[in-house]
């Protein structure tokens, strides 16, 4: 038997939105969060989860340029929005300056909070390429990192901001 009111018994719904610049059209289960649809239905496992209750920030993605917790958002609410995930930060093989700085400056240890940190940092730097330490703390305060103690993350955001502010080409193409 199936439980009365079972989540899984509702029919799926059609959803179209823009994901990392590309149009997506899929059928999604109505009970599924954006996080689940990204990771499970669309195979973009770059976005992480540490609680699925809105507590850790690991699942942050950009929705129309603003960081949101994808575990708290139903996918069905995402009709016609633009979603950007960690997979959409680099330009092909060329890393975004924030990614470069995170990689060089020790801002990713285990890397599990990193996608959430990166998209939150990008959202901040897109508004303000020269944030103060306090503004960086504020902007990243919803994402928990258990490894770094945050300081190298702050430094990476500052370094990336400097690069962006100096008007260097947004993609440096540095490898690996």
């Amino acid at each position: 038997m199936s439980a009365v009111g079972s989540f899984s018994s509702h029919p799926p719904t059609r959803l179209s939105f823009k994901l990392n610049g590309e149009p997506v059209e899929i059928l999604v289960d109505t009970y599924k969060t954006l996080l689940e649809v990204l990771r499970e239905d669309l195979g973009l496992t770059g976005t992480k989860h540490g609680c699925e209750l809105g507590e850790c920030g690991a699942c942050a993605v950009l929705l129309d340029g603003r960081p949101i917790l994808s575990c708290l958002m139903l996918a069905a609410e995402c009709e016609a929005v633009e979603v950007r995930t960690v997979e959409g930060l680099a330009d092909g093989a060329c890393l975004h300056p924030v990614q470069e700085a995170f990689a060089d400056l020790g801002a990713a240890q285990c890397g599990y909070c990193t996608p959430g940190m990166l998209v939150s940092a990008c959202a901040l730097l897109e508004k303000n390429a020269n944030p103060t330490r306090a503004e960086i703390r504020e902007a990243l305060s919803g994402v928990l990192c258990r490894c770094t103690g945050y300081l190298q993350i702050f430094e990476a955001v500052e370094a990336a901001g400097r690069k962006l502010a100096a008007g260097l080409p947004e993609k440096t193409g540095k490898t690996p």
Partner: protein
Amino acid sequence: MSRPLSGMKVVGKPRRRVDARAKVTGQTRFADDLVLPRMLHCKLLRSPHPHARIRRIDARAALSMPGVKLVLTGADLPIPYGILPVSQDEHALCLSRVRFVGDPVAAVVAVDEITAFEALDEIQVDYEVLPTIADPLEALATPEPKIQPYGEGNVHKKVALEFGDVDAAMAGADHVFEDIFFYQGNTHLAIEQHAAVGAVDPDGKLTLWSSTQTPHYVHRALARVLQIPAAHIRVIAMPNGGGFGGKSDPFNHEIVVAKAALVLGRPVKTCLNREEVFYCHRGRHPVTMKLKTGVKSDGSIVAMDLQTLLDGGAYGSYGVASTFYTGALQTVTYQVPRYRFRGCRTFTNKPPCGPKRGHGTPQPRFAQEIQLDKIAAVLRLDPARLRQSQLAKPHSLTANYMRLGTISLSECIDRVVEGSDWKNRYGKLPFGHGIGIACSSYLCGAGLPIYWNTLPHSGVQLQLDRSGRVTAFCGAAEIGQGSDDVLANLVAEVLGVDPFDIRLVTGDTDLGPVDLGSYSSRVTLMMGHAAIQAAERARDLIAQAVSAKLEVPVARLVFADRRVFDAQDPARGVSFAEAVQVGEAMHGTLGTTGSYRPPESAAKYKGGGVGPSPAYSYSACVVEVQVQPETGWVEVEKVWIAHDIGRALNPVLARGQVEGSIYMALGEALMEEMDYRRLPRHLSAALVHKFPSMLEYKSPTTLEMPEVITYLVEDPDDAGPYGAKEVGQGPLLPVMPALANALYDAVGIRVDEVPITPEKILRALGDRTAHRCGPKSFPFIEWPEPLRVPPPWEGGDGKAQNEGPRRRREGAIVAPDVAQPGLSPHPSTPEGRREKSDETSPAPELPEVLR
């Protein structure tokens, strides 16, 4: 293994770690990122009771749900396991009894996660609720009902050791200080929730992918419980999204998905939710401590007497080792001529405690460093100088036979004293503002493996081919700490190539030589030695061939910049790829191995297996706080830390480990706690976790992290690879006591327990006589007669005087108790290696299971 440190190309240079690109692009594959065709999903049904007998499990409704493929219960996995050979007390699913809220009772496997989840509700379990034990005091006072069938009542383990006549030394001391401390338990809170996937390979063998720090130990547990030859099981440790000790036991869910995959012939995955992660726990033990120290009037220690009482939770886990660790490293920081340690671990109906960053040592370190501060205050000595004046001696044996190597703690203290302007600020800041100091030390890898054997603790294998490719294979698990980077770093240094040139295959029990795992800060040192040995062997083979080709003596060849050339005529040389080609032509296919086993310990007494290490790291820390006396609110303004790292192989990562330790320490010091409460009696007498969520379990965010000034003090230790010592755990240890000592400087109070909450600060401020908040008494414990081991300077030889002859428990090294199909039965483990469990022999009364 000393070698010239100048001219190094890779070691010591700040570099992007080799796996950084994968991490910043979201391409690092963690266990829950794995998806296999036809994969099923598993969920565990966990006990709602802290202590109960399982009478009946009715799985009929769940099994009849569309999409449900399997329900497993304890009877399907009856063989017990556990990380330590002396505590084989866990079952993948409880057989007949649950011992804490969250103990797993059944597993559902279904086509998708939501179906499995919904099916959990359809399993009816009939429990007979049993009385619960909430804390060590209750455990000491309540021998029945026993939570575990072994131990004395609800006491899991008591240990007692005495190095020299402590009472006599105390009697001769100018002052004796006695203090009681409490260190609350807390948890790892790795952001990644544990996940595992089990699958049957096309040839019928088993593979398990898991977020584990210890694939080798999981491998052993699977062989044991599933009764499959170890060689037919492959465990792959996926990169961990943080470990900190929380993924170093073999876990229920790992065994369950492996079993389910075997039964169903399809891949089976599980990912724990955050609440379940809190129940897996194995975190910091809550410890009550009584520390008595005798000193001369100049503050020098003449004897130390420590008692510890640990709240172990419901299972053994690493608990016996944890208990010894609450005493073993008290002697390696300062000179302690005589020392007595007595420790007791109790069982309670709570999630099991185990190793968390610093394993067993932050608690007594907290006690010792605060007491030193009190001693300094009473004797009117400067706390920094009091420490400086009695540091342990480099290259010496301690009272309990720990063999020390290099010690740069004196320089560490100098650095933080200078950096913080200690001399002009300690005792001189306005009320509410203060600074405090503390020091510590930690091991660089446990000297003994978890199960007795004489095999290497770490192995590295290299394979090279004519393309210039170098692949390094090692069983070590990358948990975020950067072990892959250490491996590439060292191999690249020896072979003169770039770390990014090296391919790495790590954490895979099928492909790499055994490494015992990412725990006890052992990987850099042990894997590091193995990597250097393997790389040097490869270099020697290649050098021989290049020497013949270039007609340059081997001794003159240099491996650097992806070339092999003549030191006297650098233009004369070949590319690295060419060098490998001539090597392959001369020797055939090129492959080498390296391995490492720590030196023999000097501690020959029972219990002396915990504490010995090839080297010890040291740290000194100053914390500056601002306290609001009206509210008790503490703001940590700044932290200075100096860490004696021997050599920083990659300073970017080393600094990250130090700062991550400070962060985690501040969480423990100020807010983190695993706390439990009884539900109101009229509802149930259940003992439940107060905060099984990240929102309620407070941990520091970006807003709480203070400025940190990190000094890496480099004094290479011959016992480490290129002189390197550990950095992942040691820097956590001095932070909590330094913060507590800063509170004293700021407002004149002592908070002798963590977490130091505003409420406790107010309580101490309100205590007009003692100006203190902390435990008032240490319970009476009937200690066994201590093993008496005279210290080295009293003619001791590392053995106990009153210990009978000991039998070394030789056991099946690879996989105990495995019947190999078609082969004669594997010799079973000798009696006594395992604690008896009522659930194995004699067979317990199993619940009725309806399917």
